[in-house]
């Protein structure tokens, strides 16, 4: 018999198209079409209808197979493919809203927290500074060997560097200033910086309009000029493109606008709105005032080390290079050269990395939780999975189906997590301490999105792999056998894996709790520190009397004391006073001379914090006078040149005998001697976590008696009997009455000043506390989940036990014991981990050791309680099992 003839019009096309059809069905598909075509062709031949038209007809029909083949292809993709797995996963996740919600919330918390912290860390630490070639920028500061205080760069030293440093391709000084902006616009107080002319070249920051400063702008006697920041230009000058060349009034001085800087250039202070030239008189530039900061750029090919070496060399040759600098060399002045970025972010680096570690822990805990949930879920689906395998699904296909769920969950977590992160970042930017640099520019951007998605992928792998590994095809036979019975707890090692996850969760949670506990104790310890003043009911307002308004120093001082007197008379006001710098902030620190401790040019100068205060200041802020008296109104009129020193200062220099009557003067401005009239209690002038400083308080009118100097920028402090903030409108009124053009700024209570000083610690603490609470909650859910799952799996066994006479209490104890055993293992590991990791936290702690036993035991106790609670609920349920029901249920 001849083999069947398979030739017919259209058959080649069928062969061709069959390639589209999945392999498993291809042969069948091709044969079916071929057979139809051959049969139709036979009929036509038999009927003698085999014309070319008929051939075309058959070919046309064969062409229709394309749609069929494509449909087959699509169907195959839908049945076996990712797409169908995805749709199936969505459906099955929707069928179990409880599981999905818990898993999703867990992931959203984990991924959201991580993304938020990434955004913060990225914005603050990782992103380059907004200058061209930022890696070549340095900050040059100084330290004095004995005191260890960090100083900036004085004008005299700056001139030496500028003239002789070969490793530096330019150096510039800058200092934050504030000015009253007046003229046709609403009077306002704005912050900005005084900078040497090379400032913008060093940073390589070009203006958007006009020019930057020229050398002439930095010489005394030149025309006063100013460069505006984008924000000020827009807010106060309506973004006037013709602004360059016009004149604005600042502190009573007319300054010509020479340029406008772009919006992204806001430096060196957080809210720099303008820049004015720092006028340096090369011949008389002070060498001892180290309050300006210096920024410099490395020359091509020089390293940070080169710059350090050169700075040290120049300092050792300082007396040869500039007159009158011997005392600096002898003071052991050393240069501190660091990269600009380090100077910007250095202090907060530890804080932020701790935050990164914290959220990483939270994410791990979240992963462990979801992994556990998925394991339980997979366990419950083992029947279905076994059927899939029995029907020919490969290990890969089953794994893919399982993985799809974790993938979808984690992507959902990433999406929602980004929303959470946006909110969290917005919140942290508002709450962040002002000392956190660059924080204002932080937001959730595309980098954060990438991180969230990557995290989600890693997370999906992390927790999605557990069930996949567990349910490889090798276990199918076992699953088919075990799937139907409900007697066991789901396989011994599967249970062991879940237990391991719980142990991991508990240990991670404990580490976080210890961290949070230590931080909370630090905050409490900081709160316990006696700041040295009593700020309750005290409000402070910054006010400045510009030299352009009232040039005479004595008149200014009189005006100030008049203001203090009038405000003290106000109803609801107890006392008031003035001070140049409030405690717990920045302030000057410079060299002074003591009459009975003369220092020759070969000796170390005496350095001290210096403040200027008026009569009433100490009384208002509640700084006790321990000896002598404080300032009184009229001291100046009597020709009395009196100063007040802090107890630390008196104890340092006059440990025996009284400080009263000793004579002091500042090391510059041809100052005359001042007599110590009083000693105050120590005050923390800068920070609560460093010891109270040695300080000298000069009266607000200071300097030589012939050419006195007024303290034009002061904080007016007012002690009120009632709500201190309600006094502010009255203060404003009084100020306006005395002089209409004195703007008030920065009103705050002393309680706020105190809070701000602990802001960084509080910020870190609240982040750690939130993270630890989430960790605790997740850990609790984890323990609860595992214990209650075990109980549900052991329903029958427990039923049997109870039928045989076990008491409810016994059953309860048994279940609780099991759960607590897991928690205990976790806690031991966690304690060890916390012990090892606590050293990272050490630099943030205050008044508590990183290994503080109280914290460790309290935290462990709390965790035991929570674990017990998490076990108790399922244990109570186990104890209520009715033996008859339990046995029936099978």
């Amino acid at each position, binding site marked *: 018999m001849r083999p*069947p003839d398979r030739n017919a019009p259209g058959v080649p096309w069928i062969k061709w198209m069959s390639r589209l059809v999945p392999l498993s069905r291809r042969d069948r598909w091709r044969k079916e079409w071929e*057979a139809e075509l051959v049969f139709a062709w036979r009929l036509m031949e038999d009927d003698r209808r085999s014309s070319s038209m008929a051939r075309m007809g058959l070919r046309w029909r064969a062409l229709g197979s394309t749609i069929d083949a494509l449909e087959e292809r699509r169907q195959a993709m839908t049945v076996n493919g990712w797409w169908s797995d995805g749709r199936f996963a969505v459906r099955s996740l929707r069928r179990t809203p409880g599981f999905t919600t818990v898993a999703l919330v867990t992931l959203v918390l984990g991924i959201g927290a991580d993304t938020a912290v990434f955004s913060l860390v990225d914005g603050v630490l990782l992103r380059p500074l907004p200058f061209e070639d930022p890696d070549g920028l340095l900050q040059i500061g100084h330290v004095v060997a004995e005191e260890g205080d960090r100083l900036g760069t004085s004008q005299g030293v700056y001139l030496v560097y500028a003239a002789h440093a070969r490793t530096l391709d330019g150096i510039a000084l800058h200092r934050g200033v504030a000015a009253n902006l007046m003229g046709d616009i609403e009077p306002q107080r704005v912050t900005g910086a005084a900078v040497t002319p090379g400032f913008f070249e060093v940073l390589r920051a070009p203006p958007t309009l006009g020019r930057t400063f020229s050398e002439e702008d930095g010489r005394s006697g030149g025309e006063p000029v100013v460069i505006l920041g984008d924000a000020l230009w827009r807010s106060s000058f309506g973004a006037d493109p013709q602004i360059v060349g016009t004149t604005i009034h600042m502190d009573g001085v007319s300054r010509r606008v020479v340029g406008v800087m772009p919006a992204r250039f806001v430096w060196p202070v957080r809210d720099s709105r303008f820049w004015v030239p720092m006028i340096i008189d090369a011949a008389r530039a002070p060498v001892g005032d180290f309050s300006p900061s210096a920024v410099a750029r490395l020359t091509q090919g020089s390293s940070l080390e080169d710059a350090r070496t050169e700075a040290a060399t120049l300092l050792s040759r300082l007396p040869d290079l500039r007159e009158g600098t011997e005392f600096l060399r002898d003071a052991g002045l050393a240069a501190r050269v660091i990269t600009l970025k380090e100077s910007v972010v250095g202090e907060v680096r530890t804080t932020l990395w701790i935050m990164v570690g914290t959220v990483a822990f939270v994410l791990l805990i979240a992963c462990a939780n979801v992994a556990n949930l998925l394991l339980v879920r997979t366990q419950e689906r083992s029947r279905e999975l076994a059927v899939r395998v029995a029907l020919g699904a490969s290990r890969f296909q089953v794994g893919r189906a399982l993985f799809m769920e974790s993938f979808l969950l984690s992507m959902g977590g990433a999406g929602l997590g980004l929303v959470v992160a946006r909110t969290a970042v917005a919140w942290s930017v508002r709450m962040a301490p002002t000392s956190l640099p660059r924080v204002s520019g932080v937001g959730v951007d595309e980098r954060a999105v990438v991180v969230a998605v990557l995290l989600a992928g890693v997370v999906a792998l992390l927790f999605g792999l557990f069930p996949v590994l567990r349910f490889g095809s090798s276990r199918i036979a076992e699953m088919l056998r075990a799937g139907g019975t409900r007697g066991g707890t789901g396989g011994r090692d599967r249970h062991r894996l879940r237990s391991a996850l719980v142990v991991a969760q508990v240990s991670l949670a404990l580490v976080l709790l210890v961290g949070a506990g230590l931080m909370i104790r630090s905050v409490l310890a900081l709160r316990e520190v006696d700041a040295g003043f009593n700020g309750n009911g005290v409000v402070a307002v910054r006010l400045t009397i510009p030299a352009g308004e009232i040039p005479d120093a004595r008149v200014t001082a009189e005006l100030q004391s008049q203001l203090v007197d009038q405000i003290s008379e106000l109803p609801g006001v107890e006392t008031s006073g003035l001070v140049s710098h409030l405690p717990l902030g920045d302030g000057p620190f410079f060299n002074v001379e003591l009459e009975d401790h003369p220092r020759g040019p070969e000796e170390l100068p005496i350095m001290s914090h210096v403040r200027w205060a008026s009569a009433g200041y100490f009384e208002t802020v509640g700084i006790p006078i321990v000896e002598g008296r404080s300032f009184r109104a009229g001291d100046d009129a009597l020709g009395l040149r009196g100063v007040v020193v802090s107890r630390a200062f008196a104890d340092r220099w006059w440990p025996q005998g009284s400080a009263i009557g000793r004579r002091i003067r500042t090391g510059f401005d041809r100052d005359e001697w001042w007599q110590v009239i009083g000693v105050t209690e120590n005050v923390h002038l800068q920070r609560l976590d460093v010891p109270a400083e040695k300080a000298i308080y000069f009266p607000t009118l200071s300097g030589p008696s012939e050419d006195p100097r007024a303290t034009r920028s002061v904080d007016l402090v007012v002690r009120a009997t009632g709500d201190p903030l309600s006094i502010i409108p009255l203060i404003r009124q009084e100020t306006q009455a005395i002089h209409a053009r004195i703007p008030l700024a920065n009103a705050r209570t002393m309680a706020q000043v105190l809070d701000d000083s602990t802001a960084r610690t509080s910020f870190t603490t609240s982040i750690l506390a939130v993270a630890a609470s989430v960790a605790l909650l997740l850990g609790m859910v984890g323990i609860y989940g595992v214990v209650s799952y075990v109980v549900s799996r052991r329903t029958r066994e427990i039923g049997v036990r109870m039928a045989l006479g076990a008491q409810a209490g016994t059953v309860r104890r048994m279940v609780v014991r099991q759960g607590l055993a897991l928690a205990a293992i976790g806690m031991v590991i966690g304690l060890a981990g916390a012990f090892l990791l606590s050293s990272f936290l050490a630099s943030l702690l205050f008044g508590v050791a990183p290994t503080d036993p109280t914290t460790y035991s309290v935290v462990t106790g709390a965790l035991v309680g929570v674990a017990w609670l998490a076990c108790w609920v399922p244990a109570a349920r186990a104890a209520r099992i009715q033996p008859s029901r339990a046995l029936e249920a099978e």
Partner: protein
Amino acid sequence: MGHLFSFTYPTAAVLLAIRQGHRYGFDIMDSTGLPDGTVYPLLRRLERRGVLTAAWEDEDTARAEQRPPRRYYRLTAAGESSLSEVAERFPVLVRLFLPEGGTP
């Protein structure tokens, strides 16, 4: 139990054509007038849903005619029972395919 398939006109026509005895793909196309791009995917879907089953024609018959064996379709029990719903929805179509009052 939900519907095994959606009762579209082509589905109904294909089911009735098979019921009438047009059991091969091309026959179904010819009797219903539907293009092959419609009929074949429909056949496959109905087969997957268990409304139809397919089988190969007897090898010997085909061999005798010197052609490859064809694949034919018939209604399953589920398919048979679904025809009553077809009759309800498309009464005219039923009369067209089963004129001698063959009640589905």
